[in-house]
């Protein structure tokens, strides 16, 4: 430690760096071994650099992903949007998938149905059954044999030999099993709904009760062994544009029909010829909605007594809307759509002004908020998405069950593929939505902007504090002679290595006595008393400035302060920049002290705010990454523009030997 006070002066940051770079070049004479060694060096550096950068890159990309892509398995590396095809002229959109069609080409398709299958055996051909203790059996492993899949288990016998078996039933503690080799001769794959359509039949074989299904038409009794497998029936995306929305009760089942190599249930429409067959694309509840703005502007409340009896009509393409005649205050009559009915009042809109009235699938509407429109409570959402636009919409009238259907002829090109072979049709898209969401979240009465303001204020105050104190102290240590100076300089240096926890509680006590807990004060007042590392840094720099410059000024009668301000500081821009950057860096990134001193979110700094945010949105990785990106962005920007100051400063912290 005694060597510390006699440290050599610090070279100016620019000079030091150039010097180092020059020296690195002049080292080219040093043998670096064979070509292989060099390649290995680069390889190791590259692997290391990947480890350093990859998590940051991942953070960056994740911050742009919608939540489902964060959770997607297999992972989606590039933030994307999922391409959807609009269903006819409705507000429904079908997600598109990549599938390989029967011609072996990749095609964008939409799902139009599923076919489930299971492995079955005819109970009349049931082979020998054995009861085996469950602990002698391994877990079931789906295994394909010939074209049939079995849930195969390994049975370990007393003599240690093993047999491949399939569990057929449960018998108390035991599982009733049959050998795979016996089963594979008689097993078949059948559609699950065909099997389940059979009558339940309890069969007793070899003393074991089995739950089977009796298919009366075929005269067989089948036992489903599993595993179930699934094929998804898909159709080219053109089907979506042919989709028509009809009331669910108008659709009637009309059996299965073949489509290419697959089959699908088809339907007829009431009031349409039986020969017109349709494929059902979706059946769900649909909700009438209207743009909130239009409801506000053109809607009004009338007393129920001023309304005539309502009748159901199609309004703006929306079927079955209640329409009535309202007596207006001026005595005139208007035809209005009843949007929200209460016991005394009804919120209505004139029929010819309901131009944004439409249906939307209930699934697209999350839990609604409530607004008061002209005295009536109306449910609304302000984040309803249609296409790529967000709308504020009012939820009005009654929901109804609707079916989206497409004519059979349009679906002719349908085919089936294993469900797991489908992959979403994605297009890269870096949406800022996560940033908007993360930054606008209410965090106990504050948002990230509050944290930014607090941290910014602290940076400013700490900069002022450090520039005022550090320059004076550093100058004194660099230039002035006084008894006790070396001792004090050693004290200064040793405080840099002091573990802070030992000062923590009394310091907390001081700020508590001053009533500064849960204020920003404890986080900046100490900067006005200097900082050991920055004093050391600046002192090293000051010592490198030639004494002659200063002496010339002194001869002209300048005071110490004048010398410092007029001669030394203008020459110290690089070192002062380092002081400023380190102050910014520490203040921005500091966590422990804000964590100790601040308790209400209104006072939080960015780091503390991020930790708080993480506590609130623990599993919303997309928002966490966006918030983290926002927190690190200022420092990353400064780092790229002022890297050399970081590096000079870091070198100084570590090279005191």
């Amino acid at each position, binding site marked *: 430690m005694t*060597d510390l006070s006699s440290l050599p002066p610090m070279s100016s940051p620019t000079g030091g760096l150039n010097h180092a770079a020059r020296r690195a070049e002049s080292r080219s004479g040093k043998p670096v071994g064979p070509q292989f060694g060099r390649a290995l060096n680069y390889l190791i550096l590259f692997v290391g650099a990947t480890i350093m950068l*990859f998590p940051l890159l991942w953070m960056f990309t994740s911050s742009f992903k919608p939540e489902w892509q964060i959770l997607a398995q297999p992972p989606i590396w590039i933030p994307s949007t999922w391409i959807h095809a609009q269903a006819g002229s409705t507000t429904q959109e079908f997600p598109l998938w990549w599938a390989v069609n029967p011609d072996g080409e990749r095609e964008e398709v939409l799902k139009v149905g599923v076919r489930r299958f299971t492995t079955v055996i005819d109970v009349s051909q049931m082979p020998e059954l054995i009861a085996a203790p469950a602990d002698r059996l391994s877990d079931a492993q789906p295994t394909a044999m010939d074209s049939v899949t079995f849930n195969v288990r390994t049975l370990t016998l007393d003599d240690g030999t093993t047999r491949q078996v399939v569990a057929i039933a449960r018998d108390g503690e035991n599982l009733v099993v049959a050998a795979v080799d016996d089963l594979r001769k008689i097993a078949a794959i059948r559609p699950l709904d065909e099997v389940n359509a059979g009558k339940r039949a309890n069969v007793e074989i070899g003393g074991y009760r089995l739950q089977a299904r009796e298919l009366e038409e075929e005269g067989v009794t089948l036992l489903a062994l599993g595993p179930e497998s699934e094929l998804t029936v898909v159709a080219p995306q053109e089907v979506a544009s042919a989709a028509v929305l009809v009331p669910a009760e108008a659709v009637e089942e009309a059996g299965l029909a073949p489509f290419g190599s697959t089959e699908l249930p088809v339907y007829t429409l009431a009031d349409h010829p039986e020969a017109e067959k349709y494929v059902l694309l979706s059946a769900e509840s649909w909700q009438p909605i209207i743009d909130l703005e239009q409801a506000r502007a053109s809607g009004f409340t009338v007393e129920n007594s001023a309304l005539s009896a309502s009748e159901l009509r199609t309004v703006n393409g929306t079927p079955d809307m209640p329409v009535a005649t309202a007596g207006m205050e001026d005595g005139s009559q208007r035809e209005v759509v009843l949007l929200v009915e209460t016991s005394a009042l009804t919120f209505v809109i004139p029929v010819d002004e309901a131009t944004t009235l439409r249906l939307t699938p209930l699934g697209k509407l999350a839990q609604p908020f409530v607004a008061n429109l002209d005295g009536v409570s109306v449910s609304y959402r302000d984040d309803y998405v249609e296409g790529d636009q967000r709308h504020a919409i009012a939820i009005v009238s009654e929901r109804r069950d609707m079916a989206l259907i497409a004519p059979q002829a349009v679906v002719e090109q349908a085919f089936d593929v294993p469900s797991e072979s489908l992959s979403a049709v994605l297009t890269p898209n870096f949406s800022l939505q996560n940033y908007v969401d993360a930054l606008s979240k209410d965090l106990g009465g504050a948002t990230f902007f509050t944290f930014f303001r607090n941290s910014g204020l602290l940076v400013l105050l700490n900069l002022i504090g450090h520039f005022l104190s550090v320059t004076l102290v550093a100058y004194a240590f660099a230039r002035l002679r006084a008894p006790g100076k070396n001792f004090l300089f050693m004290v200064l240096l040793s405080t840099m290595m002091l573990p802070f926890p030992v000062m923590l509680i*009394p310091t907390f006590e*001081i700020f508590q006595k001053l009533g500064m807990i849960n204020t920003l004060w404890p986080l900046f007042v100490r900067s006005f008393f200097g900082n050991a590392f920055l004093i050391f840094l600046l002192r090293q720099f000051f010592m490198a400035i030639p004494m002659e410059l200063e002496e010339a000024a002194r001869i002209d009668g300048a005071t110490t302060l004048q010398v410092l301000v007029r001669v030394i500081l203008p020459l110290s821009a690089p070192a002062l920049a380092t002081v400023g950057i380190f102050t910014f860096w520490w203040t921005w990134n500091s966590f422990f002290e804000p964590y100790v001193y601040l308790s209400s979110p209104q006072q939080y700094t960015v780091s503390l705010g991020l930790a708080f945010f993480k506590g609130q949105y623990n599993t919303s990785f997309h928002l966490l990454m966006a918030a983290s990106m926002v927190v690190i962005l200022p420092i990353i920007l400064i780092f790229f523009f002022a890297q050399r100051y970081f590096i000079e400063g870091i*070198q100084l912290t*570590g090279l*005191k*030997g």
Partner: protein
Amino acid sequence: MAARLRPFANMSASARREALTFYVLISPWLLGFIIFIAYPMVRSLYLALTQYQIGREPVFVGFDNFSRLFQDPDFWQSLRVTGLYVLGSVPGSTVIAIGVAMLLAQNIRGVSIWRTIYFLPSVVAPIAVAVLWFYVFNPQYGLINTLLGYIGIKGPGWITSEDWALPSLVFMSWWTVGGQVIIYLAGLKNIPKEYYEVAQIDGAGSWARFWNITVPMLSPTIFFNVVLGFIGAFQVFDGPLILTNGGPNKATLTYMLNLYREAFQMGSLGYASALAWVLFLIIMALTVVIIRSSSLWVYYETERERA
């Protein structure tokens, strides 16, 4: 009499004025040192001997806090956890940093770009780093297990597993090794290349050059950074707080996390002061051991000059 009390008495007027200016100029620091360092150190020693609930007055209880401390399973657990963390973090990052610095010190193209890349993780806020790794370590959706999944390995639960949580924190600490890389790189650049040239003429292989020139010449830097790294690692807080909050089952309850909980969640400022002093003594004792042992492995050029 008056003259004897004035230490500057035998100085010239200008020297006296200079000394006075010196003390005026350093007074902010000196004041800060007294208020925020010297006084708190003494005060916390006193508080360690008191029972002091937050908001009340401290009551002197002698060494009660210390006897309680030695029977406190959380204290021993936190000491064990912190010790293991230090043993994993410090040597690991020292070896990695020297290794990378040595590679960069070879005549590598684009040194400044490599250096930037390695330093970047150390620049960003430690809390953001912790939040990022909280995601990276996620057993289901995290980066590591996703990548392991590609090569058919089912990764462990990392921060959710009692066995892997502490190693996870150590791995994370290795990621922010960039600052040390910069320091060692600068240290390596300060070794005169003549030494290597002479050694080569004498027929020393690259391994011999590493052990006989690089290591001794770099040893003061290594020494200093090991001491600093060691003091820092003993106080690790952010990572365990954000990633695991000390869990699972206190597997990552570090010393500072335990101290923070005692002080600011339990409000036992007296007991926490005792914990702080024990930490201080441990760090000081180990630092002294390292410094004492340094004469065995640290090579100072001044020694050579004196010899």
